[in-house]
């Protein structure tokens, strides 16, 4: 298990981390979310000792991380980093060997991953000759090639088309299924919702929400109603008189609103039916996007 505890880091006047705490467990994927500049990258870099922390600790399996354990981690930094003129397969083998594989193992692993990510025919191309998407794949291979115990992926899917996202998402999911602890940051919340078991939301250098996605959802103080209620073809404000309902948006004939968890869905539906004809009515727990907005909004002063 990876445990980040009370991480603090200042760059001059800028607070990057102000008591960041969360954990990642083997076999599970953590979606690490947060607005731009909230400290995600700093926290992820700290796992590799790339940041001189002002305070706090990074532990793996209950102990400070030793170099030989760090060699069993895989890292995909936010700013991609590859040798532009080195050939794809050579690069994969090189990094595999740096992470402790023998030269035979490294070659086998490199070939496996090139095949898996559809790069076999580009194996001898130089990285700089590849498209953005393919460079992204190579970068992921570098993180995966040594069967890491812990994967830290900083925005692994940014700039990829939906097919690429789906393909790489599957690959990362398999890593968690194999038993690796996976932490990945992303702004694509629907994707995180599909892939992740756990989430950690960081804002202003502090983790403001974390836990298993299901339990975080269940623990939310809000439920969401998405409905279309019409009278004479026009949307009616059926919810205006009900206490505790907060309108989030109205678009065309549809409206979305937030209600307290203890609201009875049946009575709400009855109120809607009394006001007009109900086209559709959904009463649901918060989506990840809702949770994110709640967490970030609460933390904002």
């Amino acid at each position: 298990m990876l445990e980040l505890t009370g991480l603090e880091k200042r760059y001059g006047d800028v607070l990057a981390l102000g008591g960041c705490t969360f954990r990642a467990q083997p076999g599970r994927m953590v979606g690490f979310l947060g607005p731009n500049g909230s400290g995600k990258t700093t926290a992820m870099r700290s796992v590799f000792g790339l940041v001189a922390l002002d305070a706090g600790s990074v532990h793996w399996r209950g102990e400070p991380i030793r170099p030989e354990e760090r060699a069993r981690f895989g890292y995909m930094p936010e700013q991609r980093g590859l040798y532009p003129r080195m050939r794809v397969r050579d690069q994969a083998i090189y990094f595999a060997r740096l992470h402790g594989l023998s030269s035979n193992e490294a070659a086998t692993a490199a070939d496996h991953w090139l095949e898996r990510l559809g790069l076999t025919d580009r194996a001898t191309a130089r990285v700089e000759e590849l498209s953005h998407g393919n460079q992204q794949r190579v970068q992921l291979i570098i993180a995966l090639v040594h069967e890491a115990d812990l994967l830290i992926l900083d925005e692994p899917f940014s700039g990829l088309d939906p097919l690429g996202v789906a393909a790489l998402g599957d690959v990362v999911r398999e890593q968690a299924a194999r038993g690796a602890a996976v932490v990945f940051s992303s702004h694509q919340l629907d994707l995180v919702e599909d892939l992740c078991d756990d989430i950690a939301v960081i804002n202003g250098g502090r983790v403001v929400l974390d836990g298993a996605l299901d339990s975080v959802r269940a623990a939310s103080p809000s439920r969401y109603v998405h409905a279309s209620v019409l009278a004479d073809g026009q949307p009616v404000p059926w919810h205006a008189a009900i206490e505790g309902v907060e309108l989030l948006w109205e678009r065309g004939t549809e409206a979305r609103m937030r209600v307290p968890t203890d609201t009875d869905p049946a009575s709400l539906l009855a109120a809607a039916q009394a006001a007009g004809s109900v086209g559709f009515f959904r009463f649901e727990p918060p989506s990840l996007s809702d949770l994110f907005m709640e967490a970030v909004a609460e933390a904002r002063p």
Partner: protein
Amino acid sequence: MSRLQAPWLVALREIRERARARSFMISTGLIVLLAFGAVAAATILPDVFEDDPPVIAVVASELPDGVAGLLADGALGTEVTVRTSGSETEARRLLGAGAADAALFGGPTLAFRDETRPSIEALANQAIRLSSLPAVLERLDLTLDEAGPLINPEPLPVVLLNPAAPGLDDDVSDSDRAVATFAVVLLLMSLTLYGSWILNGVVEEKTSRVVEVLMGAMRPWQLLLGKVGGILALAVGQLAVGVLSAGVAMSALGTADLPEVGLEVGAAALVYVVLGLLLFSFVFAAAGATVSRQEEAQTVTMPISLTLVGIYMLSLTVVVNDADSTLSRVVSIFPLSSPLAMTPRIAVSDPPLWEIGLSIALLLVTIPAVINLAGRIYAGAILRTGPRIGLRDAWRSARETR
């Protein structure tokens, strides 16, 4: 994985990737050419610098017996080329045409073109005088051995009470000076060429940000050691190819009898280039780590390059011309300048062994200190992006990292 496994892998990658590059093949080719050129030059140069022996047109039939022989044999201690002529007219013609420097004919008379040459004059006089010697000795009933000391007494020993201050050292032969100059040029080229490989290699890792991924798998000192080690191994390999080519060229050109100074200087140059590379390559690496863009790399190494060029100029002007002056001794012993300055000094002079030993010992002490300093600056700067990082800043942040 042992702590040296990562540097080893880094070095291997460095060697493999660079050795494949076209620029490496070209520079190796140039070095082979240079080695052949240098050997050819060393073979030809002495002839260029040494004056041809004077030519004297001699009309032997009009002169005492033995004169032509004495001149031609070099028996008088000076080599001359004798062109035997049939008549005074022919000898004068040769002299007039510039095919001879002097003509000696009946009388006996010595003729020059427009001005006399005292050395030839003295030789001719001596030859005429000596040619009569056998007859005189016979008359006196002396053997040549008995007469020798009388005719050619041992010269008196000469001392100078106030020797002139050393200026341009006239004892230095032009070929030694050429060897020294060549060595200095080669040393400077090696240091700057391989230094720039290291510099660019470090900056490339920063600009491509691959260093971030590398630092996830190893520590800065491991990357630094592997990088510099790999490039130095290539450099030494390339220099070895140069030395080997020089050997091949020597046997091909039949120059087995290169001046002894050539071998001495070659050996010194090898020792000092390796030590100099060890000293400066880590400095280049540290400098590279403080910048994030290739364009800044030249600016940041300007002080190093200027220092090297300064020592180079000093070696070419002071050391080569006045190898045993205080300044020459200091720059050839001081560890920052000795890699460039000691080799030319060995070429033109004979520095005491202890001075050579001291300069090497000082280098061996300085190199680890410089590596330590450069390593710390490298570690403090390698992960920082953005504007150029000051040395003090890098030093401080090295203390914080890890």
